[in-house]
């Protein structure tokens, strides 16, 4: 897409763990359009967080980007120097994380933590930053913002802390917000509050949101487009409508089958046998083959590429056509 906000191409990330090399992300490509809500879905170890964190240079020290590009507003983020990347983080791309209980600095007043991002990027004078912080707190639905400005993180509940994280992330009006499992640690009623807050922000500010989650329900209800990841590769990309109507990859299908939902009481739940692999060699095969009912020899010998099936629907499966026929 020419008008994409962020285009990641052929990204690969490896980690060194003891003597093993872990292939966490293996040639991932995708893009996010301005204002779009993109869901990146996968189980733990699928590389969904690493993909976006590595783009911003936020992965752990034992991680290394081995190939790829990530073009954001015409610049390849992977080629930037640290200082240049720091200028983009927080100003053009905001981030919120999974655990709001530990993501705020415990010895700094929350107001100062919000102000800091604006002062760092020189988007406001201290006075303006203060005024804007109060506004933000109000916008986030935090009562008595002047008082709360001076409170420390431990004086807030988990939901409130996540709101403060959001305030930090959007303080500079970024064009892209990366939300890494933002509601996983929260109660369902609070999850709903945070998601609706994010949706409202998206609508009022025209900000694109990349939502990383393991919860298909959250992704399917919040996002316009979904990417399904498995063992460090994108196995399926589809718009929400396509994803609902015509999921194609055997993993996506199996996962949808295995989710227990309200109303499934009298239905057989088909669990996926086995578990997701940790790759210690580059995958020149389909990583799902061992759990896949459709797998053939080819799946174990050749890595499937993402192929387009129209409407922006991409699937990385050698047998996608047959699966489509069999299932739908």
């Amino acid at each position: 897409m020419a008008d994409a906000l962020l285009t990641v191409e052929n990204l690969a990330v490896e980690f060194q763990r003891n003597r093993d090399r872990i292939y966490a992300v293996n040639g991932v490509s995708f893009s996010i359009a301005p204002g779009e809500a993109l869901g990146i879905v996968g189980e733990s170890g699928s590389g969904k967080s690493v993909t976006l964190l590595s783009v911003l240079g936020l992965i752990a020290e034992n991680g290394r980007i081995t190939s790829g590009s990530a073009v954001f507003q015409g610049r390849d983020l992977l080629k930037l120097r640290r200082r240049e990347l720091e200028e983009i983080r927080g100003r053009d791309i905001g981030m919120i994380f999974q655990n709001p209980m530990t993501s705020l600095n415990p010895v700094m007043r929350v107001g100062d933590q919000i102000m800091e991002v604006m002062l760092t990027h020189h988007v406001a004078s201290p006075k303006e930053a203060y005024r804007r912080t109060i506004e933000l707190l109000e916008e986030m639905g935090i009562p008595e913002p002047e008082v709360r400005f001076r409170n420390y993180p431990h004086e807030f509940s988990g939901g409130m802390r996540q709101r403060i994280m959001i305030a930090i992330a959007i303080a500079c009006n970024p064009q892209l917000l990366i939300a890494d499992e933002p509601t996983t640690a929260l109660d369902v009623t609070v999850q709903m509050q945070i998601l609706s807050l994010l949706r409202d922000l998206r609508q009022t500010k025209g900000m694109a949101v990349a939502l990383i989650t393991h919860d298909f329900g959250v992704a399917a209800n919040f996002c316009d487009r979904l990417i399904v990841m498995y063992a460090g590769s994108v196995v399926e990309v589809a718009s929400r409508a396509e994803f609902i109507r015509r999921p194609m990859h055997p993993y996506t299908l199996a996962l949808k089958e295995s989710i227990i939902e309200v109303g499934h009481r009298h239905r057989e739940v088909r669990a996926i046998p086995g578990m997701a692999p940790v790759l210690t060699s580059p995958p020149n095969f389909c990583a799902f083959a061992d759990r896949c009912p459709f797998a053939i020899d080819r799946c174990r010998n050749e890595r499937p590429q993402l192929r387009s099936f129209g409407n922006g629907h991409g699937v990385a499966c050698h047998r996608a056509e047959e699966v489509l026929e069999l299932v739908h």
Partner: protein
Amino acid sequence: MAVVLEQSPAVRPRPQSRWLQAWRRYSRNYFAVAGLIWVILFLLTGIIGPWIAPYGYADTDFLNVYQGPSWQHIMGTDNLGHDMFSQILWSTRFAIEIAFGATLVSFVIGVILGLWAGLAGGITDMLIMRLVDFMYAFPSYFLNLILVVKFGRGLLPILFAIGITGWAGYARLIRSLVLSLRNSDMVEAARALGASPVHIARKYVFPNVMTNMVVALAFGIPYDLTAQAALSVVGLGPAPPMPSFGNLVANANANILGYPWLLYFPAGIFALTLLSFQFVADGLQEALNPKGGN
């Protein structure tokens, strides 16, 4: 096969015991291994030292005082003609006796009181912990001094003086370990299984506390060695003619301007020993720490 399906236990060889794994981690730390070698040498010297010493520790040779190192006295002699090499061999013996003895005394007291406080809770816990605070506030060095002055400068008085002043740290450590385990899921699970308190203590608490104890002991020994030497420096080490590293260093200090070799050997060996114990303790801490494993 290229895919490693989070290796299923079926194909996994019998895992190594945790001690073996710990040893492998330990052996990767060269300083710790070097320290261990020195510590073992030191212990061996302490055991056989008195037999191989060319002279008795009280033997004086007034015709050969203040001798530099020579074939007859490979580390020289002091102001009374004591053979420095023999003195060091004997010092090693006493240092080991005092350090291990004192550490054991502290450890036993600390373990008993710590376990008692942690398991009993309530008022017992409160009283024992106040006692621990008290011991922390009381400058233990001075308690050592009082005890040594009062009970004499023999081996046992010194051993006990250092021993009974050093238990507070062990007690505090054990108590906190017991408390954290007591509230752990693991112990709750054992209770849910129907295990008796004795069974829980034996099979769940003790094995998980033990490595911490080993590390604490390893750090305790150099500490007590230092404490013992510290008494010597102010003239309250083992009564002459019994040698000790502290006495030797103190004595060397008095004669340092003319006869520096009196310092080289005892201070060097003592410092190296302390350092070795420290490296061993540090290595153990890293090797036995479960976090270091994964």
